């Protein structure tokens, strides 16, 4: 009975992992394929990597995506932090419920709707005041900020819920004026949330295809838009090479983050031991 169950669990586990990782393995494998036809093995080669690195179109799309992601993450973090602070620290003000609802609405709004409505907004604005004159990096960035800031606001709000208001009150009691307290106490304690929010906004922007394709214009292809349009013309091996590169970068990122977390945890444990050792010695 026990043996059978563990066999079942083991096969379920293998099946689950296989489902997740075999496609990636296949993709990586075929990225080293010499043949121009993706599913036909034509011998080992790094040919498609060379093609990829020499493709100006690809570099332009990557640069655009990174630019948009960076600006988006920075602005969304700023605005999202302000919204989160207002929601968790400003107490009750008129229209608070409405504000809370409207800040978090983009989280549940289908992307197609968001994209379409933003496109309509930009067209109307362009007709009325002549701005934006053309759709491209600016419009995509604005569109990304609108939904990214909702995520940041939620993260900041939940972090602030875990930070006792006593700390801010104590700082005020010790002579800190409210803005000073924000700088001295609240912001340092918010740093982990702000960093997480920034990274999330960055990733969301880098990842977005639907909204970007609504509000992008001619000649402003982000990386997801480029990949998608290439795929529509049929599978091509250089896309495999690109995907492999992305998998590599993400894996390195995850490993580094995990290692840093582990190290921090060990450091904390050591410090906690130090504290208890001290108080026992006293």
């Amino acid at each position, binding site marked *: 009975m026990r043996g059978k169950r563990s066999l079942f669990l083991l096969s379920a586990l293998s099946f689950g992992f296989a489902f997740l990782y075999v496609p990636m393995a296949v993709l990586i494998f075929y990225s080293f394929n010499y043949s121009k036809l993706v599913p036909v093995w034509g011998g080992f080669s790094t040919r498609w990597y060379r093609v990829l690195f020499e493709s100006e179109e690809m570099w332009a799309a990557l640069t655009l995506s990174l630019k948009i992601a960076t600006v988006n993450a920075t602005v969304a973090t700023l605005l999202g932090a302000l919204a989160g602070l207002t929601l968790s620290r400003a107490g009750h003000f008129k229209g608070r419920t409405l504000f809370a609802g409207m800040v978090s609405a983009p989280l549940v709004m289908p992307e197609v709707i968001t994209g379409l409505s933003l496109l309509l907004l930009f067209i109307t604005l362009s007709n009325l005041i002549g701005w934006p004159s053309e759709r491209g990096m600016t419009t995509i960035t604005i569109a990304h900020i609108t939904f990214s800031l909702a995520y940041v606001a939620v993260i900041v709000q939940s972090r602030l819920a875990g930070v006792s208001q006593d700390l801010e009150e104590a700082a*005020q009691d010790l002579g800190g004026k409210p803005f*000073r307290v924000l700088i001295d106490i609240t912001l340092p304690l918010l740093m982990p949330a702000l960093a997480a929010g920034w990274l999330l906004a960055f990733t969301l922007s880098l990842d977005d295809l639907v909204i970007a394709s609504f509000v992008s214009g001619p000649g402003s292809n982000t990386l997801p838009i480029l990949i998608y349009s290439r795929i529509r013309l049929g599978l091509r091996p250089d896309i495999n090479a690109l995907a492999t590169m992305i998998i590599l970068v993400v894996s390195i990122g995850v490993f580094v983050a995990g290692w840093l977390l582990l190290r921090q945890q060990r450091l904390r444990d050591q410090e906690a031991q130090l504290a208890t050792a001290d108080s026992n010695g006293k």
Partner: protein
Amino acid sequence: MSHGANHMTQSEPNRRSEPLIKVKGIVKNFGAFTAVDNVDLEIYRGELFSILGASGCGKTTLLRILAGLESPSSGTVFVDGIDITNLPPYERPVNMMFQSYALFPHMTVAHNVAYGLKRDGVAKPELWKRVDEILDMVELSDLSKRKPHQLSGGQRQRVALARALVKQPKVLLLDEPLAALDKRLREQTQFELMRIQEQVGVTFVVVTHDQGEAMTLSDRIAVMDCGRFVQIGSPSRLYEFPKNRFIASFIGSVNMLAGQVVRCDGTLCTIYIPSHDSHFEVEHGEYLDKGAAIWLAVRPEKIRISQTSPTSDMPNQILGIVDDIAYTGNMSTYRVRTEAGDVLEVTHPNQSRAKDSQLVADWGDTAHLCWAPSDAVLFSE
């Protein structure tokens, strides 16, 4: 209603000086709920004053009003003759030690303590000198570079105290200063707090739910219930001359008997207790109407217990059987079931180590109880 207290002298603070803190008619409403209900209070310079009450009685709200973290619905607060009712917390000559200590987790001990001085714009050399001095006083100099999470509970408490004291406030407010410590540390820290208060001479206002803590620490205690003060006085005054039944049973334990006034001449009252069908004599400084319903209260340690009958000229005798004994080392508490069926608590110190004399009576023994007429108190409600 108070009886019996009027003929006693009491130790009260120096009334010649003006009170340092004057609270007048403070009311605080949260929606329909009244947390603080029209409270007046005067606290004198150098006092260690406690506000004692069960949780939800409004004591913390009152403290937060003094700190400026809560604004009162009506009423005024004066400190040193200045109306501070509408001053924000960062402009008040008052500092607070939070129940949670509220130490800044991203700053070292030294920087936590220095924060208030920095905000006041104290010059660097002077600032660090004062930080060192105060850390020395709370014996934390060695740990000044630690972060709060690297400290034990007792150490954190001392950092919080140092941080609140370093600005030399006119008043230090302490919200349940010892509640987060374990029992032994709490007892040590009580005396530590009193030593520090004496050393710095700052007026302390302590909020606590622990009556033992309030009794040990305070010069005066205000007992609060449902947003109002029930009685304000020195610990011994509250204990020996409680104003009403609530105070008598809230501070320490007490035996309470219901009865009627039979005779009262302004110094001595005779009370008839129907459940015992007997008369008791109580020294009482006020005239009471004959036949008035009254409560007779007597503290467990004021009752003498013995197995032999006291001399017949002793008033206030009760005969009973020992129902239960709680041995607590320094003393034993006897629960004596009287002939009338009610149970009286009596405490007796265990003065001798000899095995036989540890207990004055054993389970099931007959016990004679008696108390002096001056050791009981009467309440008319």
